[in-house]
């Protein structure tokens, strides 16, 4: 936690945020980036088993949108995509569990059964995706429908990529949620690519926000790399959803600076384009500048956080990097509530 929290000129800070919160968001931004850089190192050492998916350049919208939710035991709930590492960290996913997931460790939340951010903690408020895009929209419709049926003041938030808006499940799920006026906020991530596919080959509208019109729900488009703008827009939508005003759609314009996954050479992304976003529109750089220009925080505050985060990621790595993979036969349990285990095939014991 940052020092001399009391000394901040809170008045000047927008969106009803305090200095501590500004620094906490910074901390999550830094943690996301540092943790991903660590994952890259582990990937190069072949310690990451499967693919590695970066959110470089998109950390702002992930962190800020999640930060607008109420956190804590059985409060709000979000469903992240592979590029929403930041959102999961905000909801309390421990970095060590992320590392374990990527490295398929026995102690990982899924005990090595699933990969990367594909895990959940319903009490903490995050439900990991499955690979099939769009499905989580329908599932979050059911979760927020439950909030509504139980009259709980809880809100759900689901992320969907520009590409994933083309799926039938996105359509069916969002439409059903809209009809039921579920307390659901949808973050449409316009990051310029779906794997290699640009928006122009994905749909015939300019902004994702236009898609919301077909569902009778309010929508806004915000600068996804402006942390406070995303926070403010999400906060507003979450408040409305909580107040019973139904589904809200927020389009965040951002840019995927790395390839679809580490193996992707990005040949289809113009070098200059990547360069331009990196140098002139990095969400973390912009946030830092904003914090310092407005004298909301001091350089030292950020430096301290950077150091804390480095330590945290080091410790998380040390804690799990040498852990064992799961024992093979642990693959058999928990297919059903019971019987406890699927049967081991006969020839394994002859």
């Amino acid at each position, binding site marked *: 936690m940052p020092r001399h929290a009391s000394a901040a000129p809170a008045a000047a800070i927008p969106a009803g945020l305090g200095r501590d919160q500004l620094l906490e968001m910074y901390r999550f931004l830094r943690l996301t980036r540092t943790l991903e850089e660590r994952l890259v190192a582990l990937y190069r050492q072949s310690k990451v088993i499967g693919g590695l998916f970066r959110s470089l350049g998109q950390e702002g919208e992930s962190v800020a949108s999640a930060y607008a939710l109420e956190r804590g035991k059985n409060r709000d709930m979000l469903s992240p995509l592979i590029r929403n590492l930041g959102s999961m960290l905000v909801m309390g996913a421990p970095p060590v569990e992320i590392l374990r997931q990527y490295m398929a460790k026995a102690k990982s*939340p899924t005990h090595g059964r699933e990969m990367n951010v*594909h*895990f959940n903690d319903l009490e903490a408020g995050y439900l990991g995706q499955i690979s099939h895009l769009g499905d989580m929209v329908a599932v*979050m*419709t059911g979760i927020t429908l*439950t909030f509504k049926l139980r009259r709980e003041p809880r809100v759900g938030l689901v992320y969907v990529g520009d590409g994933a808006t083309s799926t039938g*499940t996105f359509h069916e799920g969002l439409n059903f949620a809209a009809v039921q006026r579920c307390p659901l906020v949808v973050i449409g991530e316009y990051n310029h690519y779906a794997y290699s596919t640009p928006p122009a080959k994905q749909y015939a509208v300019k902004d994702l926000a236009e898609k919301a019109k077909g569902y009778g729900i309010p929508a806004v488009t915000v600068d996804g790399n402006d942390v406070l703008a995303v926070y403010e827009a999400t906060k507003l939508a979450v408040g409305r959803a909580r107040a019973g005003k139904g589904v809200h759609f927020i389009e965040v314009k951002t840019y995927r600076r790395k390839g679809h996954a580490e193996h992707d050479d990005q040949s289809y992304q113009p070098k200059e384009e990547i360069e331009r976003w990196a140098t002139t529109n990095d969400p973390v750089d912009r946030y830092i500048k904003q914090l310092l220009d407005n004298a909301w925080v001091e350089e030292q505050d950020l430096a301290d956080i950077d150091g804390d985060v480095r330590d945290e990621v080091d410790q998380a790595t040390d804690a799990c990097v040498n852990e064992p993979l799961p024992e093979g036969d642990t693959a058999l349990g*928990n297919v059903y509530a019971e019987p406890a285990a699927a049967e081991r095939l006969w020839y394994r014991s002859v």
Partner: protein
Amino acid sequence: MPEITYLEAIRQGLWEEMERDERVFLLGEDIGAYGGAFKVTEGFQKRFGEARVIDTPISEAAIVGAAAGAAHMGLRPVAEMQFIDFISCAYDMLTNYVATARYRAGLSTPIVVRGPCGGYVRGGPFHSQNPEAAFFHTPGLKIVYPATARDAKGLIKSAVRDEDPVLYLEHKWLYRRIKEELPAGEVLTPIGQARTAREGKDLTIVTYGATVWKSLEAAEQLAKDDGLSVEVLDLRTILPMDDAAIMTSVKKTNKVLIVHEDTRTGGVAGEIAARINEQAFEWLDGPIMRVTAHDVPLPYAPTLEDFVLPQTDDIVKAARWLAKY
């Protein structure tokens, strides 16, 4: 107790479970004020309210996905497919999201997906399907297919109480065709247990759903005309399958005929044949044979449908051949 139909038995089971457990709710197309295409949920919305009997858009994937989300949160959703043929639109959601949730992520997803199945009703290719083979291959799902009014009630109640996702397949040809007097009090049929519908010693027929009745007819006829003693095993649960009950019967009669209404190739009968081979090969006095639908989409014309689907006479002929073997 008066006799009640198979359809009424489903209604009773659902009704009792909703009275018993407020976490239970229904969702599906036209199930509310209208009471569903076959009126299975007629009167439910009046009694339990719009919050627990939800009319949905025509969105099978969203119906199942939303049910899964609600189940994660502790509710007990029962989703209706207006005709089971439309469950194909939720195939991804069921096989990839729902079925794997516990295994891959420790999520419990106690949902029931139910709907009218089966042929012999002139429904044509898209209102007559039997979907069990499409989902039988999916670890994590359970599949039940009652043949009697008692099991229709007993299995819907067990399905609602089950901790895992259950496909509850109801045969529309049986809805109003069969009647039965049910015992007073709680009727529960355990999931995973087959039922001996008729005792016999010469030959075993393994079947489920509507063909249980055709098999019983055939057994009766074979007893009269051929003096054959045929045992009829009603699986009731298709997944997980009651291997023990199957093997016990096969080891007693040494001959087995598997009968299902579904098409042949890739149907459930293949798996049963493989399991008998693996677990009771030494007891077989003849090949395991199958009576099934022909490998075509189910056509509309009565003459065509009757030809394609297995009939009592087919079972009689096949059993006779096998008995002589």
